[in-house]
């Protein structure tokens, strides 16, 4: 049915004016987008509706290709729609995926504009100083969503994907990256202290620390937050996180994520400093025993983890 609709629209478009509508709602593509809106609200998880919407946007980009300003403002205004949809269901991954598609396209156009001519480049420079970067505003958006709901894993996930690009765009030095990394850990830990049982935040903590689980490098793939740390840096950060979590343990006895992260980071720390007195085998065995008691469903997993850590 959607395919028929698309064929009809393509046929009708042939007789449509290529000048963007002055009045809203007078052109075919806008009308069809408006037709979709109530449907999306009613069936927010329907692949076909989201799919048709992005197709309509693509058609607008082709049909009005001589009017880049119109097209861009059209695509940019879609971010408001996604915002609306995500305020109704914060975890709707169709909405998050759609948002990422829009942002990716807008960024591509920005990059193309940058490459155009020296004149355009001057214009671009002026624009940057006026309009905040799309990536920066997306990063702020994830923060806004997270502050509204700490366990919004979709927002944490999007954030994790945005950070490396934001840092690249900022042309951040390794020192600035380190500062960003530390600030992110601090932001996260504030949340963890408020709501220890939330698994989204523990996952995100793992994601951040994962960076440190690889060997230090001079430079790395663009997908990393920070790469030029030393073994001393890693040791210090693992030690600090372990100490903080041990402290959290005093008031939080029944959070399995806490025990799991403690064990995992302890394993990493021991690789860097085997002769440490910071950790004892006895306490690690105790954490493992807690995990087995708190989460007997996954006993097989905990047994394997114990074997990996030689406990």
């Amino acid at each position, binding site marked *: 049915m959607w395919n028929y609709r698309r064929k009809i629209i393509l046929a009708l478009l042939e007789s449509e004016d290529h000048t963007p509508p002055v009045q809203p709602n007078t052109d075919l593509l806008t009308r069809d987008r408006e037709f979709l809106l109530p449907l999306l609200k009613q069936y927010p998880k329907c692949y076909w509706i989201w799919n048709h919407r992005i197709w309509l946007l693509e058609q607008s980009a082709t049909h009005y290709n001589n009017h880049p300003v119109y097209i861009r403002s059209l695509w940019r205004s879609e971010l408001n729609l996604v915002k609306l949809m995500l305020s109704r269901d914060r975890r709707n991954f169709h909405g998050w995926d759609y948002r990422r598609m829009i942002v990716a396209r807008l960024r591509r156009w920005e990059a193309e504009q940058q490459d155009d001519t020296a004149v355009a480049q001057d214009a671009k420079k002026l624009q940057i100083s006026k309009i905040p970067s799309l990536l920066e505003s997306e990063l702020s958006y994830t923060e806004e969503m997270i502050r509204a709901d700490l366990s919004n894993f979709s927002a944490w996930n999007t954030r*994790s994907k945005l950070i490396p690009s934001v840092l690249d765009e900022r042309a951040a030095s390794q020192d600035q990256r380190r500062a960003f990394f530390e600030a992110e850990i601090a932001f996260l830990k504030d949340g963890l202290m408020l709501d220890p049982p939330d*698994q989204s935040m523990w996952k995100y903590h793992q*994601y951040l620390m994962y960076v440190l689980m690889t060997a230090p490098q001079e430079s790395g793939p663009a997908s990393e937050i920070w790469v030029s740390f030393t073994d001393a840096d890693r040791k210090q950060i693992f030690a600090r996180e372990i100490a903080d979590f041990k402290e959290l343990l005093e008031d939080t006895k029944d959070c399995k994520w806490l025990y799991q992260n403690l064990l995992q980071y302890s394993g990493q720390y021991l690789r860097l400093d085997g002769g440490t007195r910071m950790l004892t085998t006895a306490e690690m065995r105790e954490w493992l025993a807690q995990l087995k008691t708190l989460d*007997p469903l*996954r*006993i097989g997993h905990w047994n394997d983890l114990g074997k990996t850590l030689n406990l």
Partner: protein
Amino acid sequence: MGELAAKKHVQYILSVEKRKDDLVSVVMEHLRMNGAYWGLTTLDLLGKLDNVDVDKVVSWVMECQHESGGFGGNIGHDPHILYTLSAVQILALFDKLNVLDVDKVTNYIAGLQNEDGSFSGDMWGEVDTRFSYISLCCLSILRRLNKINAEKAVNYIVSCKNLDGGFGSTPGGESHAGQIFCCVGALALTGSLHHIDKDLLGWWLCERQVKSGGLNGRPEKLPDVCYSWWVLSSLIMIDRVHWINKEKLVQYILDCQDTENGGISDRPDDAVDVYHTYFGVAGLSLLEYPGLKAIDPAYALPVDVVNRIFFGK
């Protein structure tokens, strides 16, 4: 502990097939090809495929083929890769792959591969890792993997990997159990499982089991019988199935049965449908439930069917 109401489920599936005019059939009409695959595979796992008129099914399937080589969800419907895989799987179930013009189907699928290695679902261009799995699975069954750029296809899937070890629908997409099955399956079919951090992904997957024993598709979501397939098959493919409690999962699936009229639902006491009946029975098959044929976790076909395709047994 309850038992699998196998006879009732067979009756249920056969009755759905006959009931062509009611509301369910109308809603399902556009994806009848998928429905047929779910129903027929369930019958085969239950050892009752001989209740079906093979020639009738095969000729209906072939009537759904479009001149492009792809299959539609029903006769006269537009082709889509989703229905093409189901059609090929149904023919494989009946050992009737010989009725296919293999090159024609292969060309349809190969034509949907994009420059970056991804696959579109049909001529309208939607891209998703689901379609990567479908293409690779279909071509593997037809033994034509050499007709696409498999290396690029694998690289695209790897680009959808997240730092929790899982995979999303497109690069940057959040990990989701259904999507993970597609990506792990695609990597398994192409011998590329080394791209997966098995402990990390295994951890994410085993966390999908909730107290009731059922599995959910993402953190903080409700359990659903369909994830007994998506999560379980992925855990098996990466050798981490012992990380969940199998007995409790079996119990959860059995609790979702309609023991009076047959069929399995998403959660206990909900309405049953063919989709969840298939995923429930297939999940039990993966859990080696007695009396069921074994199912292959990557091809989503009974193991004997897969062996017949590749070893001629």
